[in-house]
C-alpha cells in the first residue's frame, strides 16, 4: 500500500507529475482527499490553485518588484497578484522573470510549442491604427496642444499614405 506523499496518512489512489522550482519532474502519490484539496477537479479549482501559487510567490518577490509598473497599461505587479490577470502584451515583457516560475508551475513549461504568428499585411490593424491616431489628434486639438496635434497630423498623413499604397 502506497501512502500519500502530502498527508502521509491515507492510502494514495493516484499519482501526479509535478514540477519543482527548478523544473524537475517528480512523481507524487496522492490520496483522493488531498487531490481534492489541491484542486484537481475543476476550472474554479484551477483558478484557486493559481491564486495559491501566487500567494507562495509573493513571499519570494521583493518590495521593489511589487511596485514595478507596466509602462504601457500602468498595471503593477501587485495589481496582477490581486486579479490574476495581466493588462497587456507589454506586461509579459515587464514582468517576464517574475512570471516565469508561475507559468512553469501552471504549464510545466515556459517555452511555447506549436503554431507561430503569421507576418504580413494586416488591413484591419491598419484601420485600427488610423482610428487611434485620429482620436488622439482630436484629443490634442481639444486640449489645445497644437504642437502635438501637428505631430499627430503628420503621422496620420504618413499612415494614410501607406494604407493607400
Amino acid at each position, binding site marked *: 500500500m502506497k501512502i500519500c506523499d502530502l498527508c502521509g496518512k491515507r492510502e494514495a*489512489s*493516484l499519482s501526479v507529475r509535478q514540477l519543482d522550482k527548478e523544473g524537475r519532474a517528480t512523481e507524487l502519490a496522492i490520496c483522493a482527499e488531498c487531490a481534492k484539496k489541491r484542486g484537481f477537479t475543476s476550472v*474554479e479549482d484551477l483558478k484557486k490553485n493559481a491564486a495559491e501559487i501566487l500567494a507562495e510567490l509573493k513571499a519570494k518577490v521583493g518590495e521593489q518588484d511589487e511596485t514595478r509598473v507596466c509602462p504601457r497599461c500602468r498595471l503593477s505587479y501587485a495589481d496582477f497578484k490581486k486579479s490574476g490577470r495581466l493588462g497587456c502584451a507589454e506586461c*509579459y515583457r515587464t514582468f517576464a522573470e517574475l512570471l516565469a516560475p508561475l*507559468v512553469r508551475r501552471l*504549464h510545466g513549461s515556459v517555452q*511555447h510549442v506549436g503554431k507561430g504568428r503569421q507576418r504580413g499585411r*494586416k488591413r*484591419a490593424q491598419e484601420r485600427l491604427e488610423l482610428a487611434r491616431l485620429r482620436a488622439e489628434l482630436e484629443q490634442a486639438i481639444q486640449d489645445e496642444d497644437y504642437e502635438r496635434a501637428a505631430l499627430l497630423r503628420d503621422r496620420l498623413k504618413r499612415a494614410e499614405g501607406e494604407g493607400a499604397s
Partner: protein
Amino acid sequence: MNLVPEKVGAWLSDTGPEGDVVISTRVRFARNIEDVPFPGRMKFSEAELVLDTVHWALEESGYLKEGKFFEPGMLGQDDGLYFVERHLASPDFIASRSPRGLFVSTDERLSVMINEEDHLRFQALAAGLDFATAFKLAADLDERLETQLEYAFSEEFGFLTACPTNLGTGMRASVFLHLPALVLTREIEKVLRGAYAVGLLVRGIYGEGSETRGNLFQISNQRTLGQSEAEIIEVLTSVSRQIIDYERKAREYLMHNLRVEIEDKVFRSLGILRGARIISSDEATNLLATVRFGVILGIINELKMSEVSQLLVLIRPANLQVIIGEKLTPAERDERRATFIRQKLVR
C-alpha cells in the same frame, strides 16, 4: 432580437462519430490584438475600436455572410443567457459591461466573442468525437482573421492572454461526454481520476462548478503552453477513446445483469416527462439524460437520440422563453416547460 426558437445548432441536431457517448467536440482559441490593452485594462474607446476592428476583419474574411453579428445592446441578460445555454458564449461574457460583440454562424458551429477576458475568444463545435472537423473550422477562422489582425505574441510564451492559464497555443479543446453507465456502476470516479492524472480537466456541464447534472461531463486540456495543438488533441482523443470503451463495457454489463432495473429507470423517467404538469430544468435535464440512455440502449425505439439531446438545450430557461416568445416567471416557466416536453415526447 432575431433568435431562432426551435432550431438547435448542427453540432446537436446531428449525431456524430461515437455519438452514443460523445455528444460534441469543441475547440476554442483565445487571441489578443497587439498594441491594445487586454479587455480588463482597456478604455471604453479602445473597446469600441477593437469591436469595430474585429467586426470589419470578420466581414473582410467573408464570415459575416455565413452568420449573424450581435452588438452589445442585443446582448442583455436574458438574450445573452440564450447563447450561454447553447454553449456559444460564456457567462462572464454576458455579465461584462464593456462594448462587446458576438458572432454566431448560421449553423452555430462557429462563434466569436469579442472583448470577453481576451479581445477574441472563438470556438468551433462538432457533433460527436470529431476533433478533425472542430479544429479545422477554428484554425481556418484563426488564419483568415490573422490576415487582418496582428496578434499579441511572444516567442517564449506564444499567444499572449490576459490570464497566464491560457498562454501558448491559447487553445482549449474539449469533449462533452454522456456517461450514465459509468455513473451507475460507480466506475466514474476512477475514470475521472485517470483523466486528472494525465493533466486533463473534468467537470460537469449544465452545472455550476464541478457538480454534474444528467451524467454529462466535459473533459478539456489544462495546459496550453509547452505542447503543440496536435499533441493536446492527441492526448484528449486517446483519453476519450478509453473512456468511450469503458462506458460501453459498463453498458453491456448493465444490460446483462441489471436489465430490468435499467428498463424500470428509463421508463419511469419517460413516464414522468410525459405526465408532468410542472417541471424544473434540473429535473428535466436528469430525466432527459436517462431517456437518452434508454434510446441508446434500444429500450426506447420511438424517439431519436438527437431529438432528446436537443431538448436538453431547448428546455433551459432562456431558450424556453425564446420558444414561448414571452418573458416568464420561474413558476410559469416550470409549467410551460412541462407542456413543451409533453408535446415533444407524446407520440
